[in-house]
């Protein structure tokens, strides 16, 4: 008989340990240490009940921990201290003499811990913790129901297995079932407490390479990339600078990484201070209102092209204060003309001809105006679909397609300027944003991503901003490294991708889209019978293999499931059959052994039978040692 209270205790510890693992990364060391010490103490006390700590002492400690943790809370550091306090409270609860209520409280706190972890990280690891906690707590709750009925109840081992089976059954129905609720639960586009989410969204890439012609999901992404606390400013000043791209290879733009000496003269213009809360997005560039002058954050590097970056990719929400100057000009007296006039050799003579026609005999300022006018007044249209994808996408865009996204507009301008001898570069970042009057901040979304151009005009002694698109979005570039490890990493990342695509990024708009699809499917059922037939036929070849595997599996299971004594007997009979002795139906083992003519074999067989029967008929279980010795004896036959 097994006591329910003991099983419950073990399961509770399992739930607590998994909950702790889910928040372990975010806890302060002193929280972790206190939890572990208390856990060990409670484990020790549950086996050796030497002292019973009075409840009032535990309550007093709990209150002290709550107060200490409350002192550590700030608007920016809210979730972690709460989780720390919670995990220590759970450990204290484990120390108490537990009634139904105490167990229920522990499980509830563990659920809150898991929720806390979800506020800090959106990683797929959550699914693992969640499933484990669900499995353990389902089983624990069933036993808790027993415990609530009779705290001293004990059950037989066979019943224990039945209850465990039942809890597995419940889990296997409830967990997939929760997917239905996940899909249909109401959602809103404007969550109130989204500030609590510290875990990054699955932001598809704002990368440091722009490849022309590639469509990006960023254009459809409505996640917040950052919020900037600042006064409201004019719409046309809302350019958030991120990365500067200076190297063009004919179809893509990169940051060459060349860092010229810091020769920037001080900026002029209206000073605007922002506090930026940047969501983790997987790259190292920081965004700031154009033109940033200083950033109050450790390890920030501000390049002379005014792009700001951290040494490592940003994987958690960060906050920094930026001082920017709302100015259209970046003063620069020592521009590296070679760097900013770089073009691939033999690049599109057709564009070269066009530039030549547009700029012949004009000054720098006139050239800029002429090219800008050509793009703005030409019949170019903004489009995110059906982008030019030839070997020379820019030529395609300028002369044939005449439709593209902001990357095409900006690239065309920059390339044409460079061809006309005016240093130019692309600036990637965000444009616009939504001002929240109550909170006093701009909310900038991923789909605000934008690319514009900066051209160097010697008479202005600096770079001026030129935006050939009034409103455009930018496509991310993807790595095309074919190395084995990257491919492998990409394969592994597929799970993450699906996790983020279907779970993390499932929102109100997708919910609506899904509903529409279902509605359409009901109204116009599209049954593709032929396709289904084809699919079945294709899979038919696998059928024999599957059947064979099934049979093999069945035989294996049967062999494993057979009792050890049956296996021994079978082996014994098999062995003797080979020597010419077949056991008759209903023939006793001793009788069978006595029939053997060869004296030596008979003695050995009788020894086996005697040993076997001495265990079997005494209703004893065959120990490992028994089985080993009997097997050895049968082998010797």
């Amino acid at each position, binding site marked *: 008989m097994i006591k329910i209270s003991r099983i419950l205790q073990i399961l509770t510890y399992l739930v607590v340990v998994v909950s702790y693992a889910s928040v372990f990364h975010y806890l302060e060391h002193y929280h972790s240490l206190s939890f572990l010490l208390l856990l060990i103490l409670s484990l020790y006390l549950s086996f050796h009940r030497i002292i019973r700590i009075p409840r009032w002492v535990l309550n007093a400690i709990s209150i002290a921990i709550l107060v200490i943790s409350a002192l550590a809370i700030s608007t920016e550091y809210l979730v972690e201290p709460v989780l720390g306090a919670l995990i220590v409270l759970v450990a204290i609860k484990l120390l108490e003499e537990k009634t*139904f209520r105490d167990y*229920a409280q522990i499980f*509830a706190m563990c*659920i809150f811990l*898991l*929720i806390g972890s*979800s*506020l800090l990280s*959106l990683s797929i690891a*959550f699914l693992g913790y*969640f499933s484990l906690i*669900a499995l353990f707590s*389902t089983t624990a*709750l*069933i036993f*808790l*129901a*027993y415990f*609530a*009925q*009779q705290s001293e*109840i004990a*059950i037989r081992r066979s*019943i224990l297995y*039945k*209850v465990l089976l*039942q*809890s597995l059954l*419940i889990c296997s*129905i*409830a*967990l997939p*079932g*929760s*997917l*239905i*609720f*996940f899909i249909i*639960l*109401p*959602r*809103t586009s404007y*969550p*109130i*407490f*989204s500030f*609590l*989410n510290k*875990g990054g969204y699955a932001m598809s890439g704002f990368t440091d390479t722009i490849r022309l012609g590639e469509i990006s999901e960023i254009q459809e992404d409505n996640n917040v990339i950052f919020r900037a606390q600042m006064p409201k400013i004019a719409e046309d000043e809302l350019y958030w600078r991120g990365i500067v791209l200076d190297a063009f290879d004919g179809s893509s733009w990169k940051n060459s990484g060349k860092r010229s000496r810091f020769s920037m003269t001080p900026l002029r213009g209206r000073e605007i201070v922002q506090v930026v809360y940047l969501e983790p997005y997987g790259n190292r560039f920081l965004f700031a209102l154009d033109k940033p002058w200083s950033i109050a954050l450790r390890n920030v590097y501000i390049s002379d092209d005014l792009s700001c970056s951290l040494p490592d990719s940003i994987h958690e929400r960060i906050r920094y204060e930026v001082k920017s100057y709302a100015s259209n000009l970046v003063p620069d007296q020592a521009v590296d003309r070679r760097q900013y006039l770089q073009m691939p050799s033999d690049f599109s003579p057709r564009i070269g001809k066009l530039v030549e026609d547009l700029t012949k005999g004009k000054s720098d300022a006139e050239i800029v105006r002429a090219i800008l006018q050509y793009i703005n007044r030409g019949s170019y249209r903004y489009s995110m679909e059906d982008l030019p994808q030839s070997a020379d996408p820019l030529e395609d865009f300028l002369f044939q397609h005449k439709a593209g996204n902001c990357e095409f507009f900006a690239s065309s301008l920059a390339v044409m300027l460079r061809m006309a001898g005016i240093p130019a570069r692309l600036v990637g970042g965000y444009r616009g944003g939504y001002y929240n009057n109550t909170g006093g901040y701009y909310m900038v979304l991923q789909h605000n991503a934008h690319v514009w151009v900066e051209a160097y005009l010697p008479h202005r002694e600096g770079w001026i901003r030129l935006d050939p698109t009034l409103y455009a979005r930018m496509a991310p570039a993807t790595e095309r490294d074919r190395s084995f490890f990257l491919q492998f990493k990409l394969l592994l990342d597929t799970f993450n991708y699906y996790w983020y695509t279907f*779970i*993390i*990024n*499932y*929102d109100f708009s997708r919910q609506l889209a899904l509903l529409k699809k279902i509605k359409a499917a009901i109204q116009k059922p599209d049954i593709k019978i032929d396709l289904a037939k084809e699919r079945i036929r294709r899979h038919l070849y696998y059928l024999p293999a599957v059947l064979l595997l099934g049979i093999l599996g069945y035989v294996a299971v049967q062999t494993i499931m057979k009792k050890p004594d049956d296996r021994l007997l079978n082996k014994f009979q098999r062995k003797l059959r080979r020597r010419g002795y077949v056991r008759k139906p209903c023939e006793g083992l001793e009788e069978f052994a006595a029939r053997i003519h060869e004296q030596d074999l008979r003695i050995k067989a009788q020894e086996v039978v005697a040993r076997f029967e001495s265990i079997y008929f005494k209703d004893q279980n065959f120990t490992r040692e028994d089985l080993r010795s009997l097997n050895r004896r049968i082998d010797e036959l």
Partner: protein
Amino acid sequence: MIKINKAGWIYIILTLLIGFSAVNTGNNLIYIMASALLSYMLVSGIFGRQNLHGLAIELEIPEEIYAGTEIPIGIRLINQRRLMPAFLIRVLIEDRQVLFAYTGAKSEDKSYCTFDFKVRGEHVIGSIYVCSVFPFNFFTRFRKIHQAFRLIVFPKPKKCGDLPAQDRQARIKGDASTLAIGFDSDIISIRDYSSGDPLKYISWKSTAKTGVLKTKELSAIELQQVLIDFDRMDKRDLEHSLSCVTFLVLKFIRSNIPVGLVIQGEHFKPAVSKSHKINLLRKLALYDQN
């Protein structure tokens, strides 16, 4: 019928709270938690409901039940389901309850519950419910078993000194030492214990030797035959009279003295058989009852 337990209310509130947090943080992981809690609520409902289906109750009622005396009634829970065992079934009978922690599929389990019927007569045990908190102690589900069990409670046996019957019989026949079984004289034999034997006659020595409860049978002071004419008895305190007669009937039959009864014009000839005893007691139990 469902009753939401305290833990159930907390679960519901927790689910609502987490659902609210999910909507207002837009965090899909919290949505997963809320969905799982809802899903568990639904699945626990289905399992809880299923757990009460295909159950039958049978009562094992002793043949002789006397008013005001505690008797154990056997409650058999029969799980008629083919696959699903019955978990944590509580059987509610009147104001008593018995817990069956586990009853396998296609099997049954038995437990006893002590009853104490205060008054004689016919009783109907009709209010039988099976209930269970399975699987999570959030909700208690009840199901009424539409089955009634009738039983007759005999009057409480009471030894009375004021009844004329015994005196009169004694006077007519006179006392005589006899081989008839009674509780008055020497040990005649030792037999297996049967329900209702007074504790003081249990032969502990024989019980210890055989491992079965044994009762000493003593010789009785002989009373040849007894006829109790209840119709002619004083019935000012009817219940008292019934109790006294019950006591006498039991005493005589236990002493192997044939006893007869005249009641409501019906004449029962003296006999000592068990069925005769039951008949007499039933008559007494149902006296003056519609």
